């Protein structure tokens, strides 16, 4: 299977281990990820704060390049890149004038028929029945699935999962033998792009998320976004320094958790790159507080 692939800037830098684990898992599943040739930065937070046209043109160019390379689907591992590409695609589809402007700027044709695949969707296929992969080492831990804000919002544009209490990552974790906890901070803000300018706010917000997960018995936090990972893992020392709270909860990329379950090595998955050591306590954890049954699909909840 061959898919287009947009790494984005962070996968080459601070989120190297996401790239490593992604390629390792893709390799195991027989998926070849082909980078979009001559790709540029998606614009992230900076572009849409400065200029609407730039904010749409940068992802627009990436999509146009993907179309030119004949790619039907493009995997976008970074949540921010995914969000920018999806929003840009939505705006270009709705506004003909904007479309013409962007086409002129990027000097390429644009049809808007590339399908964007986020990390959760890709892993659902990797772990799906058709892929034929077996879970060799079940990831038997209680985990807090942290989606971050960009994977499911804005709901009208992304149309992916439930915006307030998403379940896609929880289901994937269950498939590899983990026990996802039910917790209210799945999509709460971690501080996002304020990582450098207002580290104190990042510390406060991320601290809350960690506290909520630890309180409900999580042994690890699973993330799908390099920004979330940076705030929750890389900034752990700042959190301790600025809030006085100390957490040892490891933050693991979804691809790393899946990779471990499929039998790949910690080294191959880049676990050693994390600032917070990824270790799981040997003794059984105390029983977590009673959770509402996780299997119940609230969309089909009992009628009155």
């Amino acid at each position, binding site marked *: 299977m061959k898919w287009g692939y947009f790494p984005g800037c962070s996968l080459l830098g601070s989120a190297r281990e996401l790239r490593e684990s992604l390629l390792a898992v893709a390799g195991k599943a027989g998926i070849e990820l082909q980078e979009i040739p001559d790709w540029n930065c998606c614009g992230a937070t900076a572009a849409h704060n400065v200029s609407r046209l730039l904010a749409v043109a940068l992802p627009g160019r990436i999509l146009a390049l993907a179309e030119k390379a004949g790619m039907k689907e493009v995997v976008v591992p970074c949540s921010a890149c995914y969000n920018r590409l999806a929003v840009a695609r939505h705006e270009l589809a709705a506004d003909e004038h904007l479309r013409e402007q962007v086409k002129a700027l990027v000097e390429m044709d644009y049809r808007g028929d590339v399908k964007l695949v986020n990390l959760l969707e890709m892993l659902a296929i990797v772990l799906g029945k058709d892929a034929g992969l077996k879970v060799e080492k079940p990831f038997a831990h209680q985990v807090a699935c942290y989606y971050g804000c960009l994977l499911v919002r804005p709901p009208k544009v992304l149309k992916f999962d*439930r915006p307030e*209490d998403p379940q896609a990552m929880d289901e994937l974790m269950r498939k590899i033998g983990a026990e996802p906890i039910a917790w209210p901070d799945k999509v709460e803000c971690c501080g996002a792009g304020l990582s450098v300018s207002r580290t104190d706010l990042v510390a406060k917000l991320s601290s809350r998320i960690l506290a909520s997960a630890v309180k409900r018995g999580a042994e690890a936090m699973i993330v799908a976004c390099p920004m979330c990972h940076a705030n929750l893992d890389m900034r752990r020392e700042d959190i301790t320094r600025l809030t006085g709270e100390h957490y040892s909860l490891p933050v693991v990329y979804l691809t790393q958790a899946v990779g471990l379950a499929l039998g790949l090595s910690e080294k191959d998955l880049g676990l050693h790159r994390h600032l917070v050591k990824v270790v799981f306590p040997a003794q059984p954890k105390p029983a977590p507080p009673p959770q509402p049954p996780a299997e119940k699909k*609230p*969309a089909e*909840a*009992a*009628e*009155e």
Partner: protein
Amino acid sequence: MSRIGVFICHCGENIAGTVDVVKAAQAAAQFPGVVQGAEYKYMCSDPGQSLIKEAIREKKLTGVVVAACSPRMHEPTFRRACAEAGLNPFLCEMANIREHCSWVHEKSEATTRKATELIRIMVEKVKRNKPLYPIKVPVTKTALVLGGGIAGIQAALDVANAGHQVILVEKDPSIGGHMLQLSETFPTLDCSQCILTPRMVEVAQHPNITLYSYSELESVEGFIGNFKVKIRKKARGVDEKLCTGCGICSQKCPKKKIPSEFDAGLGKRTAIYVPCPQAIPNKPVIDRANCTYYLKGKCKACEKFCPRQAIRFDQKDELVEAEVGAIVAATGFDILQTRDFPEYGYGQSQDIINGLQFERLASASGPTLGAIKRPSDGKEPETVVFIACAGSRDQAKGIPYCSKICCMYTAKHAMLYKHKVHHGKAYVFYMDIRAGGKMYEEFVRRAIEEDGVIYVRGRVSRIYEEDGKLVVKGADTLLGAQPVEIRADLVVLATAMVANPDAEALAQKLRVSYDPYHFLSEAHPKLRPVETNTGGIFLAGACQAPKDIPEAVAQASGAAAKVSALFSSSELSREPVIAVVNRTAPPIFSTCTACFLCEKVCPYQAIEREEIKDRKGNVLKVAAKVNQGLCQGCGTCVALCRVKAIDLQGFSNEQVYAEMMAV
């Protein structure tokens, strides 16, 4: 030979100030077919009308044109005058030389010329007018009331007390609607069931009312005064004539844990059940979806123990046909469920409930016998948060309108809670307080000042569970959007009032228009709130728009008054501006080719197929025929007919072409 009389009105200075009426009258008198051209200061006045009447008699006029204001003003006035003088009223037309001429142009030759031309157009039309006579349609003096809530009950009682027959159809096993589920009503805190049940009994016992409970409207045909309806009496599984309402069947039923609809899901009922103790009729219903007998073929405990052998497992639905003259739609409303709120947890928490569920908690006949208890663990809540505008006034939820009753019932709920749990803390998160009715504002003040309910102006963005409490995160906008976090034991959402899920289907059955929210449409929002655009069908209660009980009752009585007016004579007179398919002598019978395109386009389904037969009953020809009771006179069929076999009386092809050619 045409003998048309033209009468031009000065309308004081309104017309005469800009149009040279004398010149126009002289010109009009010269038109071919016109035998009189007169002008007068005020044609609509008594002397003005006398002028017309005298002219009709003396000059033996065959048609009258009054050039004055808009026909929308005085056409009935002049037509009546003509009728009094013995001329068919439909031989009188008006030329609009005021709104369309004198009032919109300067005084000039061109203006007078325009007025003269407008008069000539009308003269040419009137020459081709034919005398028309009002159509009489019989009226069946029975009313059908759909819905047995407070609005339906009121309408049924009013019509029945006026001496007419009423058929009341209610889809639930008992009448009473949502009002029966309430514990107390604002602003008096009257016990809801105490004031409602006497009316329910009156309905059940009224000699003029036939009650079909656990029944639904199957189909409607016909038109005002002459509806043919089919009602589906759903099978209760019980012979109502034998059943005494003793209740042994429910006591013996082994399936006891079915969520009760009457208790809004908070209480439980059995498979064979009566929805509540005050149900009318007090006869049980077997819930076939949950009954062991229907699911597995076993049990039959109710049948075993019924002292009257009234259980009938093989009972089938029955279709009842009836003829009625008027229909009142009083089918009520629904409210959003807590699972419709993703930000409040998708309904997963049992301790987040909606307004109707709180009513059941507070009700003495409810699942907790009136004690306020958390549904999850049965403990008494120490802190309760009430959230107003949950879903209403929210574009993101697709409900931009206000549900009208929530501010009042939220204050009521908070008060009831404080009356029952004195030391408890009650918070209300609100956007605005809408308390416009009589004694309403005072009621809300009472909640705040006497019962110590804390009102916070702001919305709640999230609710989640933590350590057995509900963390409510809201804002206090009066303090400058300060975030407010309350750890509550129970949260009550005043969820938006919405139309019933089958409101659209009902509206289509009745051929009544409805708005984008599926509330049924009134004929005019200001002046005709109880009628619909469909003749003979009236509205009462919340099915038309969110409203409270006093308004529903008032509207129901209004609808009943309209029904009584309709029934006040045994014949209904209709304006004869309707379409007619031509008929001629055999062997042609009609130029209609029976393509029935007209049937397809008629918005009122007023075209019928007529089989023209010979004396032996053989069909010689099928042609279209217009139902005089249904046709509203739009003329779409006339424009459409390829052979022009159908024409519109009052705006016939001959008339319209003549008008146009006179320009």
